[in-house]
């Protein structure tokens, strides 16, 4: 690797000022509302998702307290059902998927060396839709109208006959809100990665984290429509008397389960694939060497993405699936362990041959190793039909899914926060507090969730609001409360650390970890235009691999939001195009869409009436600009000789 903290090309003051005028937002509240800056929206997404994480955690603590002793009357069954449904839906739809996508929004453009994310207005729209989904779930809960049929909302329990209130409708439209938001991000990220990479970043030089986001985005694009169709069919059943899932009128409750799990199982991979990609990032950076087995790791991510769609039926073994079919899904569920295993071996090989530095992000990744490995091993057990029909829908599965999801995502996410906090804020977080919060959270997590394996084997089903003293489940459930306290303390320590570091952390500089990917090439926090000189790359870890005379991209205009579009395979320049300015329309469109979704719960007419404001706001959104010289331009012929990797630069920025 070359010296990591070498100097950037000299800054031309005029350039920076003009770029700031071009890419910056208006000051104050107007800028806050109209911004299409992927970094502002990414941070906003992260903070909102973290708030939902805390709120969902409070619900979890309430449930653990209710279950800490037999026949506790702290929560009524009605409230308990609302709480566990909201907890699950919140963590899946409002925390786990959005928080990983938020990291993608912030870092994918930076890591591929682009000035912006593709479709920036769509990202702004996505955020407002996501907020709408969050309000949709949480406001009804406080009105005693929270969803109560489980995050899986199995029919016919979720049909109007058995769930007569608006609770399930609220859940179904919350799904629609958040899936629209997630799909918008997925489309933007795929386009950003495939068409906006820095020159020289061929497919085999894309950072592993970015690959993870690409795989996640494709999974979102293929999985989310299934659940949107399912939830829309459900709400049609409930509101206009269709009968997709009603047995007595020719519908089928198992249809719901197939549609739901065709989304629901890939959802697990959607959530933890970015987590494993984060671990690859930390392992590389803190081993001080290139990832061992980069190709194997990337192919593992991709194959996990494919296999992930072939095992949804293992959630339905207890429905009485014919043996041949069940065997196929057992085999698929076992095979999916292989790519994950390969990733584990490559991480160990990288650490083995590198010089590991146990900084906080790597420590959280080590927590991931412990926790996620247990979750993966119990996952292999659950793939086996005979064992699955015993432990399915018991606390064994509750333990398993928390080991997979918290292990696979939350541990790497805390690591990611420590890793990228300097980039977000320009300040370092406190290592001592970081390690303290890790120890508290790690111990608390294992004390809370490990006993659940035993409880499941001892016969405790999921989703029960209480249990009889004779069952003997009281002791372990009581013990788990200690773990809850420790996890809470760990999370609070993290918040205190983040707050204090934000105010008085040590200044970070561009690249405090001496890491190799492009986001470390720019200042911390990055300017609105990301890179003064958009980089080109000569290796997988450009900061390490680029020679000192590595050229930069020239020929982009500074007075409009000009970005470079490159070819999919090898990242060679194709053309430049102008991106849209900040706009109020994404927010207004989101409000019109929200009116449609919320109104549809109450009357089918809302779907028709709300199309008008939706049409008006979308027209505003897509209204063409006045000026003549805009839009897509072929890359000027004199810039065809744009400096490529390993060639001397031919000019400075225009």
């Amino acid at each position, binding site marked *: 690797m070359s010296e990591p903290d070498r100097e950037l090309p000299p800054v031309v003051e005029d350039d920076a000022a003009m770029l700031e005028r071009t890419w910056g937002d208006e000051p104050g509240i107007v800028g806050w509302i109209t911004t299409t800056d992927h970094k502002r929206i990414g941070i906003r997404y992260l903070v909102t998702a973290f708030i939902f994480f805390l709120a969902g955690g409070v619900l979890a603590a309430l449930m653990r307290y209710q279950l800490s002793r037999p026949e506790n009357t702290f929560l009524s069954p009605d409230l308990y059902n609302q709480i566990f449904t909201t907890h699950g839906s919140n963590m899946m739809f409002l925390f786990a998927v959005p928080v990983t996508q938020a990291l993608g929004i912030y870092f994918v453009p930076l890591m591929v060396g682009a000035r912006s994310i593709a479709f920036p207005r769509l990202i702004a729209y996505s955020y407002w839709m996501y907020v709408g989904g969050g309000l949709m779930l949480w406001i009804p809960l406080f009105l005693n109208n929270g969803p109560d049929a489980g995050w899986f909302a199995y029919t016919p329990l979720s049909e109007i006959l058995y769930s007569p209130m608006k609770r399930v409708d609220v859940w179904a439209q919350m799904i629609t809100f958040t899936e629209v938001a997630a799909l918008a991000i997925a489309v933007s990220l795929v386009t950003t990665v495939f068409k906006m990479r820095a020159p020289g970043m061929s497919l085999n030089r894309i950072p592993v984290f970015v690959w993870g986001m690409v795989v996640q985005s494709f999974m979102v694009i293929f999985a989310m429509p299934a659940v949107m169709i399912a939830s829309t069919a459900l709400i049609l059943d409930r509101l206009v008397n269709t009968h997709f899932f009603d047995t007595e009128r020719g519908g089928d409750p198992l249809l719901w389960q197939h549609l739901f799990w065709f989304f629901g199982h890939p959802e697990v991979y959607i959530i933890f694939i970015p987590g494993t990609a984060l671990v690859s990032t930390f392992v590389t950076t803190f081993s001080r060497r290139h990832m061992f087995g980069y190709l194997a790791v990337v192919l593992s991510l991709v194959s996990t993405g494919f296999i992930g769609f072939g095992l949804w039926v293992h959630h339905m073994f207890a429905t*009485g699936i014919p043996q041949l079919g069940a065997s196929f899904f057992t085999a698929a569920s076992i095979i999916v362990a292989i790519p994950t295993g390969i990733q584990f071996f490559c991480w160990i090989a990288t650490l083995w041959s590198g010089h590991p530095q146990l900084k906080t992000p790597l420590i959280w990744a080590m927590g991931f190793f412990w926790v996620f490995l247990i979750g993966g091993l119990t996952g292999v057990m659950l793939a086996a039909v005979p064992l699955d029909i015993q432990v399915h829908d018991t606390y064994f599965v509750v333990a398993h899914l928390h080991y997979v999801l918290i292990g696979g995502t939350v541990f790497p996410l805390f690591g990611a926060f420590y890793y990228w906090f300097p980039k977000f804020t320009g300040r370092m977080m406190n290592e001592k507090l970081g390690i303290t919060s890790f120890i508290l959270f790690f111990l608390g997590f294992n004390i809370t969730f490990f006993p659940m394996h035993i409880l499941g084997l001892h016969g405790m089903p999921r989703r029960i609001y209480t249990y009889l003293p004779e069952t003997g489940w009281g002791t372990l459930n009581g013990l788990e409360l200690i773990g809850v306290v420790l996890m809470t303390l760990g999370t609070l320590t993290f918040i205190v650390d983040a707050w204090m570091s934000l105010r008085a952390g040590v200044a970070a500089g561009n690249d405090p970890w001496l890491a190799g990917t492009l986001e470390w090439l720019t200042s911390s926090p990055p300017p609105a235009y990301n890179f003064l000189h958009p980089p080109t790359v000569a290796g997988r870890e450009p900061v390490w691999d680029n020679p000192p005379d590595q050229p930069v991209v020239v020929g982009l205009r500074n007075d409009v939001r000009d970005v470079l579009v490159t070819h999919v395979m090898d990242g060679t320049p194709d053309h430049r195009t102008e991106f849209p300015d900040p706009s109020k329309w994404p927010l207004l469109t989101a409000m019109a869409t929200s009116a449609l979704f919320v109104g549809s719960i109450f009357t089918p007419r809302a779907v028709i009436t709300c199309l008008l404001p939706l049409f008006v706001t979308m027209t505003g959104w897509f209204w063409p600009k006045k000026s003549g010289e805009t839009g897509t331009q072929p890359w000027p012929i004199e810039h065809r000789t744009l400096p490529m990797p390993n060639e001397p630069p031919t000019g400075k920025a225009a």
Partner: protein
Amino acid sequence: MIAVGVLQNILDPAGPQAAHISRLWWLMFWVAAAVFVSVLSFLLVALVKRNRASTESSLTFGVATATAATVATLLVLLGATMFTQRSVASLGAASAVTIELTGHQFWWEVQYDDADPSRRVTTANEFHIPVGRPVVLKVTSRDVIHSFWAPNLTGKRDLIPGYTTAIWLQADRPDVFRAQCAEFCGKQHAHMALDIVAEPEDAFEKWLDGQRKPSQEPTDDAQLHGRDVFMKRQCVLCHQIRGTSANGLVGPDLTHLATRGTLAAATLPNTAGHLGGWIVNAQAIKPGSQMPPNPMTSDELQSLLAYLESLK
């Protein structure tokens, strides 16, 4: 009198299927433990070792070996799974007892099949099986999806409206096993359990014969009065007592209520005190259940209890 059962444990198998599954569990457990320890050991060494002179080819060899070992282990586990699955799927015997189990919010309807309709037996929330003889459960649901799960005997099976599926089970020792609903089914999912009484063949036949009879006639004034209370109130709208004019099919059959060990779907021991409390205000015990409150005078309640307690 049978106490509320607590035998609900995967690791204490009492039938051939649960035994097969628990063997698979222990195989999986030890394999998983070995994998966990070896992976974390390699990780620990990678973090602390001093000599870092590994060539890329030796790393490739290590990763390839580990991957091959993973594939081999998974193949062994897949084989063990297929083998167990075959053993669990069917006990196939002509002499099997056939029981129809129907799920309701939040209780279980039990029917013993018989070629002669008059010999069919209907009961609720408890069934008896002969030790050592295979049993076929034909399961379905009348409302939402429930799931039958008796961990000591075999794995679970969902009760799905519109579908009837069959599972086999067999108990190898006399005991009372607890089964609990394992699919979230609404407000009282937590209190939807069922006792399975495994007993020797002759005791089982004796019990089944007893269940075939119509209900016992009242033998004293209190019981007579109690029957009147039952017949004149809303009880008859939902409950059946064979041999009387009570023919409701919404709630559990009460013809031989006094022979059962528990009340309210294996939630309470079947004692006069609990039964009284359940009748007067079931909502205090199982909020959200279908049983409405039945305010009545103490005299009426005592008579009603006397009658119900006589339904042996």
